[in-house]
């Protein structure tokens, strides 16, 4: 390959090799943290033996001593409430994002591959839904089916689906004109087959990006909804409702709201970091097809071994540059991953300051 490509790949590899040990450390830390959250979601009782509902004798105790995070007005241990309060939040946000992903990908695929009439109708419906704020959708749904985790899941799912669908549809449209998708058509591949075999795997990067940025927003939205009383009802522990309950006594008993708030912040940060990290694992462009799932295996050098690097091309295509023909990159090992879209416009971002916690 051309020297410029080697230099570019070298620059990338330099960056990567410097952080190779750092990346191994990151992988270990990430896995541990994600495991903690998994346990929190599934079995919060492992972290604390005190029940969050027990009314104790020690009202409004400061943090420290027997109660790590203090107690509330009814003597309940805040630490225990924070630990148990993770469950509804995580369940709601993850469930909502999962629902939105499945629905968004399906709708996006349909919108990108269906005949023009169908796709126009579908995408315009999606656009209309995109215009509705999450809160409105949540209120409507909850008014219909009642408050609780399930309604938040549904609300998040419906609210995020349009954004996902738009991103997926745009990517599908650009993928359809790539040669290997057209080649599938020449082989006699049906539309569905092409979608599953070619489009979906190559959408993975976009989907992971979408999901990773959405989980953070979903956590925020879920806690907002429960802050407003639309989620889990008291006395069940929940970060959002606990935050609301302690909001009035911030000056006197600051620990009532602060610790749930901190928990929310940490969770969103972890969600974002986890998204970045998963994204780096899944990129096909680097020469690490065998290290893809070896999470702790570290990186191989990103320059392929000399035997496999067999440059064979001049720096650009020759004279077929019509106005519609884009000279392609000729560097095999320097393959840039599929276009990563910018931040997805999440419906939750439209909340005004009044509605935010």
């Amino acid at each position: 390959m051309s020297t410029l490509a080697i230099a570019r790949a070298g620059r990338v590899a330099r960056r990567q090799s410097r952080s190779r040990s750092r990346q191994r450390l990151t992988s270990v830390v990430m896995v541990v943290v994600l495991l903690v959250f998994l346990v929190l979601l599934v079995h919060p009782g492992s972290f604390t033996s005190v029940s969050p509902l027990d009314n104790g004798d020690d009202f409004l105790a400061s943090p420290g001593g027997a109660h790590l995070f203090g107690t509330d007005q009814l003597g309940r241990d805040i630490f225990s409430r924070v630990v148990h309060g993770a469950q509804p939040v995580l369940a709601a946000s993850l469930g909502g994002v999962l629902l939105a992903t499945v629905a968004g990908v399906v709708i996006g695929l349909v919108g990108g591959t269906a005949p023009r009439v169908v796709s126009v109708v579908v995408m315009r419906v999606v656009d209309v839904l995109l215009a509705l704020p999450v809160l409105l959708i949540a209120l409507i749904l909850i008014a219909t089916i009642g408050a609780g985790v399930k309604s938040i899941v549904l609300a998040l799912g419906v609210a995020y689906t349009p954004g996902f669908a738009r991103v997926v549809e745009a990517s599908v449209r650009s993928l359809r004109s790539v040669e290997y998708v057209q080649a599938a058509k020449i082989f006699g591949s049906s539309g569905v087959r092409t979608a599953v075999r070619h489009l979906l795997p190559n959408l993975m990067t976009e989907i992971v990006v979408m999901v990773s940025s959405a989980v953070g927003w979903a956590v925020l939205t879920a806690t907002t909804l429960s802050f407003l009383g639309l989620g889990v009802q008291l006395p069940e522990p929940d970060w959002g409702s606990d935050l609301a309950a302690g909001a009035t006594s911030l000056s006197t008993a600051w620990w009532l709201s602060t610790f749930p708030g901190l928990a929310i912040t940490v969770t969103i940060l972890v969600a974002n970091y986890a998204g970045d990290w998963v994204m780096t694992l899944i990129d096909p462009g680097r020469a690490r097809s065998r290290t893809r799932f070896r999470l702790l295996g570290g990186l191989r050098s990103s320059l392929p071994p000399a035997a496999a690097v067999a440059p064979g091309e001049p720096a650009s295509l020759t004279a077929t540059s019509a106005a519609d023909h884009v000279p392609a990159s000729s560097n095999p090992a320097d393959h840039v991953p599929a276009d990563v879209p910018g931040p997805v416009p999440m419906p939750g971002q439209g909340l005004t300051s009044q509605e935010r916690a």
Partner: protein
Amino acid sequence: MSTTLPVARRREVTPGETVLAISDLRVEIGTPNGVVRPVDGVTFSVRAGETVGIVGESGSGKTMTGMSVLQLLPAGGSIVAGSIRFCGQELTDLSPAALRRLRGEDIAVVFQDPMTSLNPTRTIGSQLREAYRIHRPGSTSAEADARAVEVLSLVRMPRPQERLRDFPHQLSGGMRQRAMIAIALLCEPRLLIADEPTTALDVSIQAQILELLDDLKVRLGMGIILVTHDLGVIAGHADKVAVMYGGRIVEEAPTAELFANPRHRYTQALFESMPTMELDSRRPLASIPGVPPTLVDLPPMCRFAPRCRFARDDCRTADPAPVEVRAGHTHLCLHPRPPGDDLDDSERLAPAISAEDLRPAGRPGRPLVRLDVVEKQYRIKDPGAFRPRRTLHAVSGVSLDVLEGETLGIVGESGSGKTTVGRMMVGLEAPTRGAVRFDGHDISRLSRAEERGRAGNLQLMFQDSSAALDPRMTVADLIAEPLVAQHLGSRSERRAKAVELVDAVGLPRAALEKRAHEFSGGQRQRIAMARALVLRPKVVVADEPVSALDVSIQAQILNLMRSLQRAYSLTYVVISHDLSLLRYLADRIGVMYLGKLVELGPSAEVYAAPRHPYTAGLIASVPVPDPAAHRQQQAGLSGEIASAVDPPSGCRFRTRCPLATDLCAEQEPALVARGGRHDVACHYPLTA
């Protein structure tokens, strides 16, 4: 020449004076895999009024040599040894500020791809003005505009005043390159470094741009460094040639001397592997086995030794020292080609397959694919609200037959519609009018179920192999995919087929588990071919199969295509802009211009005696790798290709045709057979 330059600002350059002298230049780029040395001891000089051509394949370091003059090196790269003297001034120890003053003012660069080298969000005029005002601080906008117009007319841009307001995407490729050259010439540099300036352009425009550069060189007394991989371009436009391989100049000589008497084995191998127009199409091409070296941590040895069939032990152990054959001709070979050896027969790499006829057995038979007055129109969505919708006439009324067992070549420049014809044959596009028939059945508009059947008969090899292979699939999956799509065979059978084809295209079996991006361009093209053959099609349409590959790799792929044609009894339709390639590969050639088929006949006849003026102009524009031929070459094509949205009335070529008359504007000529199998669409066809 320029009235806006301050008088006596710098001394005039006398013709013949050495403008640039590079001595033992070494450039290093640090990578985690080792130190890359793209320029490893390069020495040459450029005089005013002289064009020095640097020839090499990718990975030879030719671009880095050009860029290192101005220290436009990639990050991590630096000049570690040697000197670069420009008009007596040493450049390697200049401060960044002094270098900036030098760039554009005294030394200018023309890059390869004007579309990415020009800012798409600014007009040409604004970019010209910016370049001018950097070096002439204090000049007004009006002065800059005046100079811009002056320099645009110097590069023969039509209607320069209007061009100032145009954006790059509104210009054609040739005009963009002229704009780039204009930007380079704004301050009348003494040295111009042209890095593959015409590779991305059509053949006829290429000839115009190269001729322009020659003319400007004489008028402005510049020295030019012309970096290219095309020996034909070198033959016609370079005074002196340096052949680079593995970061070193392996041979340097005046052009005529190099072509008449190449000494280094690499130069000899390059000449042998080019499908020039005189090549005997029955012979396989002499390809250079292997691939160019990566320039990382190479031990002392002749860099070409691993691929050289004349290499001996001493070639692999020590760096060869320069040998001077005569004044101006040096090379780096320990066992050079003896002088006077006939380049054609005795040394040619034509071992066991020397005189074997590579054409499939039997003469071409019945028509297999028939295009019946096929038309393809695209509707352009016009941003203007009240303007009527316009159509792009990509293909207009093309009728041709593809005979069984033959190789049909379709040649044309960009915008000719040749790719669209290929796509209509395999069913990626449905013709707006007319029909495509295979074996008598109409295959142009098929239902989904019927399309399956067509896949077994017609396949396509795409131009861009990196985009044609799914980056997430292994090679085994890629090759077996057509079988999966057609629900043919069990898993083990498909695997066996994949193995069989990987062997047939010359790839190692270990390749089956790798992914496409781990291979080079030539290897990817082999994978694409294996994939195209797995359904045993009768017809393979190859869209520019080798245009993105180096010359030595091209020869490998072409030989492979030939042998596969024999083994699998294939019929090829090869679409290309490269005439010399089709001359070698095709039995019959069709020439397309702006959506019309203008000539169709046996390839030998079409080249030896073209009937249509466009074909004649195309042949004249192709740079022939023979310096002597350029003296007698006729004029190439003038002007630009017309718009396909609004094609000229009557004969579409009449706007560029030297023989056009009123009849040509009124009446469109039909493709008529004149004298047997050679058809031409012209009112005044050229006679032999």
